[in-house]
Structure formats: structure tokens, C-alpha cells
């Protein structure tokens, strides 16, 4: 089983006990071009420490997504969802994953057009647990509702997907079989939940080696 989005050292250590493979994610909040030299050095260091690394772009500027992607930084490129223009641009730019398209929204952040685009461009949709853990009951119900809708869309158009905790501390880590229960709560059957922690993540990790 593979955890594709763990964002903290102690969380990473715990995840390594429970998962066969864990990707360390570095969050990058951007409002203008970053210092690519410094970024490459940091990513190199992270690769030495964690092996597999991902870069999570958190930005309001669509153009920065393509710019970072074209730098071939030897890291998976994730985009944090939540803004519809960013969601669309991430899918158009064929990044590796769009994480929580519904984050902070009053709708699910996806529609059938975007779901089809995710499938066509092979951009995985990340279903994260952490935002649910941090939310109050009212928000939990709404986030779950939007995630359920996004699962229905992803399944219908056969877009790649994965389950993850997106843990930012060790207390947000969950064992694989428990993380699968999130997928099942969203409407997945057991094989689909399993594939969201194995088959699809393997496909994404394959891109790293290239």
C-alpha cells in the first residue's frame, strides 16, 4: 500500500511503519516565481532523506503551475484544489495530481467536464482525510458530501484517483485499511478503495523514475 501525500517528518516515520511506500510532500505557497536554484537544492536534499518527493503547489496564479511543471524538478507535482480556475488549469497542465478539489468551497470543485479532462490528461484526483479531521461536524458533513460527488464523477469518467491522509502531523496518519474506510464511505467498493492505495499510486510513482 502507498501513501502519496505526507507532509511532515514525524508523520512520514509513522507512515513508513504502516505503508510499503510513502511520498514526502513539500508545500510551496507561490504568488510569484520561486528561486528555482534554491528549490532544486531543497528537493535534492529531501530526495536524499525520503527518496520519493512531491511538490504541492498552493497558488492563485495558474501560470505558475505550468512554469514549475516545465522545470522538470524530479518531484511529483501536485496542485492544491479549491479554486475552480486553478483546478481546471492544473488538469490542463497535466500535473501529477489535483488534491481536494473541494477544499474550502461551497460546491465540489469538479464537474463532468473537469472529470473527463482529468481522465484524458491522466491527472489523479487526491481524496484527502486530513481536511475532514480538522473540520467541525457541520463542515465534515459538507466536505464528505462534496467528496462523494467527486468520487461519482471520477468513477464515471475513469479518471485516476488515490486516497491519502495529506497528513501535516503524525496524528493525521491512519493505517491503510482504515484509510480505505474513507473511500468506502464515499461510495467506493473494497476493491476500488484498495486500488486507490495501490494500483493508481503505483501508476503515479512510475512517472517519478522517468
Amino acid at each position, binding site marked *: 500500500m502507498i501513501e502519496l501525500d505526507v507532509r511532515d517528518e514525524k508523520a512520514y516515520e509513522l507512515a513508513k511503519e504502516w505503508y510499503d511506500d510513502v511520498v514526502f510532500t513539500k508545500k510551496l505557497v507561490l504568488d510569484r516565481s520561486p528561486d528555482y536554484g534554491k528549490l532544486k537544492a531543497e528537493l535534492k536534499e529531501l530526495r536524499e532523506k525520503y527518496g520519493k518527493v512531491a511538490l504541492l503547489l498552493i497558488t492563485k496564479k495558474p501560470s505558475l503551475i505550468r512554469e514549475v511543471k516545465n522545470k522538470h524538478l524530479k518531484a511529483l507535482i501536485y496542485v492544491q484544489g479549491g479554486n475552480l480556475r486553478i483546478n481546471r488549469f492544473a488538469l490542463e497542465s497535466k500535473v501529477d495530481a489535483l488534491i481536494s478539489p473541494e477544499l474550502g468551497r461551497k460546491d*465540489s470543485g*469538479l*464537474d463532468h467536464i*473537469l472529470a473527463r479532462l482529468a481522465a484524458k490528461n491522466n491527472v489523479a484526483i487526491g481524496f484527502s482525510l486530513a481536511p475532514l479531521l480538522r473540520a467541525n461536524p*457541520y463542515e465534515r*458533513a459538507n466536505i464528505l458530501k462534496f467528496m462523494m460527488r467527486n468520487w461519482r464523477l471520477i468513477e464515471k469518467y475513469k479518471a485516476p484517483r488515490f486516497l491519502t491522509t495529506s497528513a501535516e502531523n503524525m496524528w493525521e496518519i491512519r493505517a491503510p485499511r482504515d484509510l480505505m474506510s474513507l473511500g468506502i464511505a464515499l461510495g467506493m467498493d473494497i476493491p476500488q478503495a484498495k486500488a486507490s492505495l495501490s494500483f493508481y499510486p503505483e501508476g503515479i510513482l512510475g512517472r517519478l523514475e522517468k
Partner: protein
Amino acid sequence: MSERPKTLPPTLRDKQRYIAFQVIGERAFKKDEIKRAIWDASLKTLGELGTAKAKVWFIKFDEKSQTGILRCDRKYVEEMRFALTMLTQINGSKAIVRTLGVSGTIRRLKMKFLKDFGWK
């Protein structure tokens, strides 16, 4: 401008129902109190997961007639009705929520169940 996702094609759309309800209480209630009470009732009886599946949504509440409309998933109308049945107070005051009827559209709901409460 905050963009919104396109409306989904019919087969992918949620199948919703509208429920008309009347509130009988120790005092008149405000719109926001009712909105809060509906969510709390659903979270209490159906939980976070049940509330997500029920897709409950507060639509409108007419403070004059103390009647209102809520929306939920077609498959969860009975659960929502039970959640409202189990509600005993709103914002600290005793209350009974009585469902008046269910319909697929707000228009028909108003016509069939809310006319005598002064709804246009």
C-alpha cells in the same frame, strides 16, 4: 468572480426532494435559528456521514407563518423526517417540527402544502 462548476448531466445529478415543514414552539423562531436546528437535528440523529448522504440543505423559512422548506436526497426523506421528529428544542426553547409534505419541486411543494400558510 467566483466560478461555479457546470450543472451536471441529469444521470449524474443528485435526485433531491423538497420538504415543507411547520414549527410549533414556545416562541416564534428566527430563520437562522431554524437553519441551525435543522443541521443540528440531522447531525445528531444521522451523524456526519448520514448528513452527508442525506445532502440536507436549508432553503427558506417564513418567520410570519413559522413554516419553511428544506431539501434532501430522495433516498433520505424518511431519515430526515425522523431527525426532525426527534428534535425537541430549538436554541433552548421547546419546539415541535411537523412536516407538511414532500415534493420534487419547490413550486409544487408551495402549491400543495404551503398555500394556507400564505406562501405565494
